[in-house]
C-alpha cells in the first residue's frame, strides 16, 4: 500500500487529507466541547448553495471561488441558527434542522439551475455532495492549505479566549471578553473545516469529520491542548489511511472510507481508552466488586469467630451461601489462594467448612479498623 505514496495523484490526495485532518480535528474539538456537534452537520449541508454560487461567479469549477462561496453560505446559516434560537421560541435542534434542510434545498435548486444552463464546464459540480478526492489538483492544495493555515493561526492567536469561552462563558463575560463575538467566531470557524473537506469527503459526510476526531481524542486525554493535538493526529491518520485504502481498491469512494476509518477509531477509543473506556471501567468495576466481596467475607467470618470466642471457628459454606444469597465458593477460593482462609473439617459428615488463618484474622481486624468499626475482642 505504501508504494502508492510514490504516485503523483495519490501524493496530492494524501496532502489534501492531511489538511483535512488538521482543520477538522482542530476546529471539531471546540464544536464538540461547546455541544455544537450538529452545527457541523448543518454547516456542511449549508455549504452546497455556496458551492453553486461560487461556481456561478467564477463560471467554472474553480476551487477557490467554490470554497469562498461555501464559506459564505455556511457562515450565514450559522448566524441564522443563532438569530432564530435567540429571538424566537424555536429550540436549537429545530433551528439547526431548518437551516440544514432549507439551505440544502436551495443548493439543489441552484444545482439544477446550473445544470439547465448547459454549461459544458459544470461537469462534476455535484461531486461536492460526496467529494471526489481523486480529482484533487495540485493548485487546489493551495486553497485547502491556506484555509487550514488561517484556522491554525486564529486558534493560536485567540487560544486563551477560545478556551475560556468554551469552558466558562459566564466568567469570560465577567472579565470583559466579548463573549457573543467569540462564540460567533468559534461557530463560524466550523465552516472553515467544512470547506477544507468539500473536495475530499463532500458536504454530506463532513459531519463525521468535524465530530469524530474530537470525540475520539477526548477519550484519551483531559487537557484541551492535548485533545486538540490528538484530534489532529486522528484526523490525519484517518484521512491518509482512507485515501490509501480507496486508492488501492477499485470503485471505492474516498469520503466514505475515511469516515468509516475515523468511526472505527472512535469505537476503539470509547471501548478501550485507559481510565475512561467502557471496557476498562467494566473490568475495574468487576475487580472492585470482588474486593468488596472478599472484605465482606473476611469481616463476616471474623465476627462469627468473635461471637464463638474461637479465632479458628469453622464456618459452614452453605450457611455463608444462604447468608449472602449467592454462591460464595469463588470468593472463598480466592481468599484461600491469598492465604486468608483455610478449609477445615468440623465433622466429617457435614459439608465443607472454612476457617480464618492468622493472616486472614489480622486482615479482618485491619479492615474493621480502617472503616472505623472497632473489632470487638
Amino acid at each position, binding site marked *: 500500500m505504501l508504494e502508492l505514496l510514490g504516485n503523483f495523484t495519490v501524493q496530492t490526495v494524501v496532502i489534501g487529507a492531511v489538511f483535512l485532518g488538521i482543520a477538522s480535528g482542530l476546529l471539531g474539538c471546540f464544536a*464538540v466541547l461547546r*455541544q*455544537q*456537534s*450538529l452545527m*457541523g*452537520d448543518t454547516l456542511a*449541508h449549508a455549504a452546497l448553495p455556496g458551492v453553486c454560487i461560487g461556481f456561478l461567479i467564477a463560471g467554472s469549477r474553480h476551487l477557490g471561488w467554490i470554497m469562498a462561496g461555501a464559506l459564505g453560505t455556511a457562515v450565514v446559516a450559522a448566524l441564522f441558527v443563532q438569530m*432564530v434560537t435567540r*429571538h*424566537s*421560541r*424555536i*429550540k*436549537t*435542534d*429545530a433551528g*439547526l*434542522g*431548518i437551516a*440544514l*434542510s*432549507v439551505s*440544502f*434545498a*436551495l*443548493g*439543489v*435548486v*441552484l*444545482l*439544477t*439551475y446550473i445544470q*439547465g444552463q448547459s454549461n459544458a464546464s459544470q461537469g462534476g459540480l*455535484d461531486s461536492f*455532495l*460526496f467529494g471526489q478526492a481523486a480529482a484533487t489538483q495540485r493548485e487546489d492544495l493551495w486553497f485547502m492549505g491556506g484555509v487550514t493555515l488561517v484556522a491554525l493561526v486564529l486558534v493560536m492567536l485567540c487560544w486563551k479566549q477560545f478556551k475560556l469561552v468554551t469552558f466558562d462563558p459566564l466568567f469570560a463575560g465577567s472579565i470583559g471578553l466579548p463573549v457573543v463575538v467569540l462564540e460567533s467566531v468559534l461557530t463560524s470557524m466550523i465552516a472553515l473545516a467544512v470547506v477544507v473537506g468539500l473536495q475530499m469527503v463532500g458536504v*454530506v*459526510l463532513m*459531519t*463525521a469529520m*468535524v*465530530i*469524530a476526531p474530537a*470525540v475520539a481524542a*477526548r*477519550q484519551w486525554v483531559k487537557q484541551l491542548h492535548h485533545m486538540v493535538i490528538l484530534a489532529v493526529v486522528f484526523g490525519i491518520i484517518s484521512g491518509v489511511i482512507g485515501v490509501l485504502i480507496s486508492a488501492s481498491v477499485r*470503485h*471505492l*469512494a474516498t*469520503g*466514505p*472510507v475515511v*469516515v*468509516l476509518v475515523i*468511526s472505527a477509531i*472512535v469505537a476503539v477509543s*470509547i471501548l478501550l481508552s485507559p481510565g*475512561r473506556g*467502557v471496557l476498562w471501567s467494566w473490568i475495574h468495576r468487576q475487580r472492585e466488586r470482588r474486593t468488596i466481596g472478599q472484605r465482606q467475607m473476611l469481616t463476616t467470618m471474623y465476627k462469627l469467630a468473635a461471637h464463638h470466642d474461637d479465632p479458628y471457628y469453622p464456618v459452614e459454606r452453605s450457611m455463608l451461601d444462604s447468608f449472602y444469597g449467592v454462591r460464595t465458593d469463588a470468593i472463598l477460593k480466592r481468599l484461600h489462594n491469598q492465604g486468608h482462609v483455610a478449609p477445615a473439617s468440623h465433622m466429617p459428615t457435614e459439608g465443607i467448612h472454612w476457617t480464618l488463618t492468622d493472616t486472614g484474622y489480622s486482615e479482618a481486624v485491619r479492615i474493621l479498623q480502617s472503616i472505623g468499626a472497632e473489632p470487638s475482642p
Partner: protein
Amino acid sequence: MIASFFLQPVAMILLTGALVAAAGALVGTFLVLQRNSMLSDAISHSIVFGIVVVWLLTHAQSGPVQILGAALTGVLTVFLTELVAGTRRVKRDAAIGLVFPALFAAGVLLLNLYARDVHIDTHTVLLGEIGFVWLDTMMLGSLELPQAVVWMSVVTLANLIYVLMFYKELKLATFDPQLAAALGFAPTALFYVLLALTSTTAVAAFDAVGAVLFIAFVIVPPATAYLLTDRLSLMLVYSVLIGVASSLSGYPVAVMFDVSVGGTMAAMTGVFFLLAFLLGPRHGLLGREWQRRRGE
C-alpha cells in the same frame, strides 16, 4: 374521469408533494416538540444503508420489504445513538452525529462495491426527482396509479391513524414524559414507533424528494406552526397546511425557472418559516415588537 386524473403528470406531482408534506408534518410536529428534530436528519441519511442492504438481499427497490427495512434501519439508528450516548462518554448530539454518517458511509460503500449499475444511485437517494413520479405506475384494481402516490398514501394514512389513535398518549409523552411513564403510557415505545413511522415515511418519500429534502418537510412546517399557535391540535393542522402549501406553491416556481421541483418545494417551506418568524402575530419578531409597544 378518475382514471385520467391519476395519469395527469402535474396532478400526480402535486398530489405526491402534498402527501409527502402531510405525512412529514404529522410526525415532525412531535419530533420538533420533543427537541428531537435532528433525529429526522439522522434517520433520513441512514436509511440509505437500509435501502442498499434490502436491495442487496431481495432486489426490491420499493414496496413493502423496503418500507419494513427502512423502519428497522430508523429504529437501529436511534437505538445505536442511544447506546453510544448511554455510555456517557459522548454527549447525545455528538452521538447522533457519529452514528448516522457511519451508517451512511457504509451504505455508500456497499453501493460502490456491489450495486454499481442499479437505479438506486446516491444522487437519487439524496435528491430524488418528483418530476418523474408519474412514469412509474402500478395497477390497483382497475386504476393505474403512480407507485409513489400509492405508497405515500399508505404511509400518510398510517401516520394519521397513529396520531389520531394515540393523540392523548403522544401529547402527554411529549410534554411530560415522566408523568406519562408513571401512568404507564410507555413513552419509550411511543417514541420508537414514531421514529419507525418517520423512517417509513422517509423511504416512501425518497423516490420523490430524496432523503435530505424530506427533512425540510419534517422540521420546517411544524417549526413554523410552533410560531403561530400554542395548541397541539392546531399546530398539527397548521403544519400540515403549511407543508401542503409549500408543495403546491413550489411547483409553479420550479417550472418557471426550470429547476428541481422537489428542491423548490422544500425551499418554499423556508419562505413560510421566514414569514412566520418575521410577521407572526404572537411569536414573530413583528408581533413581539407590537406587544412590547402596546405594553408600554
